[in-house]
């Protein structure tokens, strides 16, 4: 009996060991293979350095691979603790303390400590650095794994600025290495704490990265990442069709349709905090027709947003009724404007324009002006608002917009990260860079929310502000354009759309390739 039981136990054990053996051999699999992207923009060495982050989302395409942040957006959570194990805010809202993850190594073997965090913050000189540093009184290293930020006064948006792509201040670089190689040296051979380490960069050609097996979260599955710069979108699509690249960013219009039709390729839209809207810059001038709310409302009802979406983005974009993107914190969802040209004409007649009105120019930046501004002008024209589209080159457009020279109707757009108040501050309150005017009650509520530390109360204030903007028809929001990409047959997990409000593949350590047939 004992002997037979021993035999059974031995047999079961043998079976279990045999079953477990392949799994054990597979689990710590070394990274293999390569994923190649066809990138639509010219890669710049400034993107290898978080200190240079300029407020646009594009550098994060590289930062997510080379570097890591204390807190950063990850799948399912816009503020995921990454290099910080945890963080706390004091009750008075004046101090933020971050406890760092232990044993995190940079690509050169240096261990990350609180000194690196303090150094990275102080070295940061990118977007909003002036504002951010003006509000932080000091950064103290409590111990090697604990760092404390003390603010001059409570600031409800500290984490929005520090821990989201609004800035790159929370992305950590190795202090000793930067001091050793200098600023130029760091851009030539960047070292970070991200899942991929730098291999080579040929300006205008490609960036090559290799999996870092010491990455704290996990060892990446794909060994090599290659970002090839292909500025022409037809060529990007050709490269994808030929299998020269696995993912092609930014394929638009008829080429996107062709991509959709091509067997083996997949059209994958992604989204970020990008909205396009129309501004009525003369609404504060009683002599202007745009002073009349009915005219502004007529313009909103005259635009077929879904039609524009279908024509320009194959239906993948999101019709927009607020200039604050839907994915932003504190977004208030406004009631949609129906497409109702008949009602629009009625409103114009009620406002004293039964035969429509010659409304002057609609100024727009050339690229989105052609894609979105042109149909907008056509829809307005059909309803009796006769505007002439005036396309301006990007630099000239934003310069004139900043100097408040564009009148009476302007198509604006922004993909800046942040939250609803940061978007409102620029466009809808006194002193805003692109605000041609403002309303005192909205200004008052805005000042109030800026000092409100209670998120619930702050949300109520921001909801109220957005409601007032909507009721006064300050803008004609049009669309949140999708970023259309092509994906080839090889990637199993391509990372597109995993991180909310991030248009590129991420997190790179989660990418996988399909097994070879």
């Amino acid at each position, binding site marked *: 009996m004992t002997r037979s039981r021993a035999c059974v136990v031995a047999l079961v054990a043998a079976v279990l060991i045999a079953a477990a053996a392949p799994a054990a051999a597979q689990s710590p699999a070394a990274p293999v293979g390569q994923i190649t992207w066809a990138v639509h923009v*010219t890669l*710049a*060495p*400034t993107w290898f350095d978080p200190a*240079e982050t*300029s*407020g*646009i989302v594009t550098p994060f395409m590289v930062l997510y691979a080379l570097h890591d942040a204390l807190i950063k957006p990850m799948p399912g959570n816009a503020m995921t603790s990454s290099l910080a194990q945890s963080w706390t805010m004091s009750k008075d809202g004046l101090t933020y303390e971050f406890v760092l993850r232990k044993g995190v190594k940079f690509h050169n073997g240096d261990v990350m400590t609180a000194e690196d965090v303090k150094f990275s913050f102080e070295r940061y*000189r990118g*977007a*909003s*650095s*002036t*504002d951010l540093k003006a509000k932080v009184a000091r950064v103290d290293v409590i111990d090697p794994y604990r760092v404390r930020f003390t603010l001059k006064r409570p600031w409800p948006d500290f984490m929005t600025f520090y821990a989201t792509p609004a800035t790159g201040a929370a992305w950590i670089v190795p202090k000793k290495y930067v001091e050793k190689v200098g600023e*130029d040296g760091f*851009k*030539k051979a960047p070292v970070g704490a991200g899942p991929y380490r730098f291999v080579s960069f*040929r*300006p*205008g*050609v490609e960036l090559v990265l290799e999996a870092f097996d010491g990455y704290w979260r996990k060892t990446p599955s794909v060994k090599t990442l290659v970002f*090839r*710069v*292909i*500025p*022409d979108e*037809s*060529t990007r699509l*050709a*490269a994808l*069709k*030929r299998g*020269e690249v696995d993912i092609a960013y930014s394929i638009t219009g008829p080429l996107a349709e062709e991509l959709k039709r091509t067997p083996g390729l997949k059209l994958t839209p992604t989204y970020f905090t990008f909205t396009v809207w129309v501004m009525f810059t003369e609404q504060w001038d009683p002599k202007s027709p745009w002073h009349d709310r009915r005219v502004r409302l007529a313009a909103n009802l005259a635009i077929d947003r879904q039609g524009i979406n279908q024509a320009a983005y194959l239906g993948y974009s999101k019709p927009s009724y607020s200039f604050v993107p839907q994915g932003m914190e504190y977004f208030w969802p406004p009631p949609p404007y129906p497409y109702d040209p008949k009602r629009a004409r009625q409103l114009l007649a009620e406002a004293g324009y039964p035969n429509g009105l010659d409304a002057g120019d609609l100024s727009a930046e050339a690229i989105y002006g052609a894609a979105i501004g042109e149909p907008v002008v056509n829809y307005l024209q059909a309803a009796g608002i006769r505007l002439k589209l005036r396309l301006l*080159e*990007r*630099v*000239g457009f*934003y*310069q004139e*917009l*900043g100097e408040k020279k564009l009148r009476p109707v302007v198509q*604006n*757009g*922004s*993909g*800046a*990260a942040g939250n609803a108040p940061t978007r409102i501050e*620029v*466009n809808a309150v006194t002193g805003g*860079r*692109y605000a041609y005017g403002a309303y005192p009650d909205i200004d008052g509520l805005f000042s109030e929310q800026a000092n409100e530390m209670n998120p619930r109360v702050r949300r109520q204030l921001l909801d109220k502000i957005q409601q007032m903007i909507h009721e006064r028809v300050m803008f004609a929001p049009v669309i949140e354009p999708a970023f259309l990409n092509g994906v080839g047959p090889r990637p199993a997990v391509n990372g597109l759309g995993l991180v909310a409000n991030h248009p590129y593949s991420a997190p790179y350590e989660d990418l996988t390739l399909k097994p070879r047939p």
Partner: protein
Amino acid sequence: MKRFILKRLGYAVLSLLLLSLTIFLFVRLTGDPAVLLVEPGASKADLAAIHAQLGLDRSIWVQYGQFMSSLVRGDLGHSFYYRTPVLELYLSRLPYSLLLAVAAMAFSLLVGIPSGILAAVHVNRWWDSAGKIFALLGLSLPSFWVGLVMILFFSVYLGWLPSSGSGTALHIVMPAFALGWYFAAAHMRLTRSSMLEVLGSEYVKLARLKGLPEARVIGKHAFKNALIPVLTLAGINLVIMVNVAIVVETVFAWPGVGRLLAEGIAFRDFPVVQATVLIGGAMIVVVNFFVDILYAVIDPRIRYER
């Protein structure tokens, strides 16, 4: 002769000085580069910080003085976009441009010159008509269109050639054809007209009267003389191919100087635009300088006339 060379050298230096001032001022009329380096809506403080970082907060004449003093030391400045020395950037792209330009030039000469000769020798006949059609197509079809059609046919449809990039001999085939296509037509037209002029000259008539074989009349007596203007044009075209093959380099993602210039213009990267235009201008000035001297050596009347 020494005085002539010194005079030409003086003109060359003056041309470059004028070019440096012109490009320095004109590039600054194109707008504020800081606007493109930040997300629209950036604060005035952010824009001011970028102006200070890039040295754009100083007066324009201080900036020009610094640019010229750096230039004298061989420093063309730092790129606003890449944040690396412009000379380093330019030199990293130059080999690609030279390779492309030489390949495209070889193609354009190998196609353009023989077809020009054939058209001239068989004037108003089939060869001439075919040459005229070729020249018309070459000069009128835009190179980006030729490039895209080639990518579709040879790369996507047939799968013979890589669609873009650089690195192997196969990568250069399509860009060289797309770039050389226009110049082949230009060289064909010039060869044809130059050959027609020479074939009608007295000494060619004399050679024929002497009973020389037609191949020798064309090959030795006519072709050699007809080639001079073609080669002069080819020299200037080579400089153009190296520096401003913007469209072809963009379509084929070829990392040359032309694309660097296009990026510089798009990003308002003043140092890159200044350097690329100045170096391109310097190449033309140097080529012209040596051509002037060669002319003067060949024909002494030139140095006395000037």
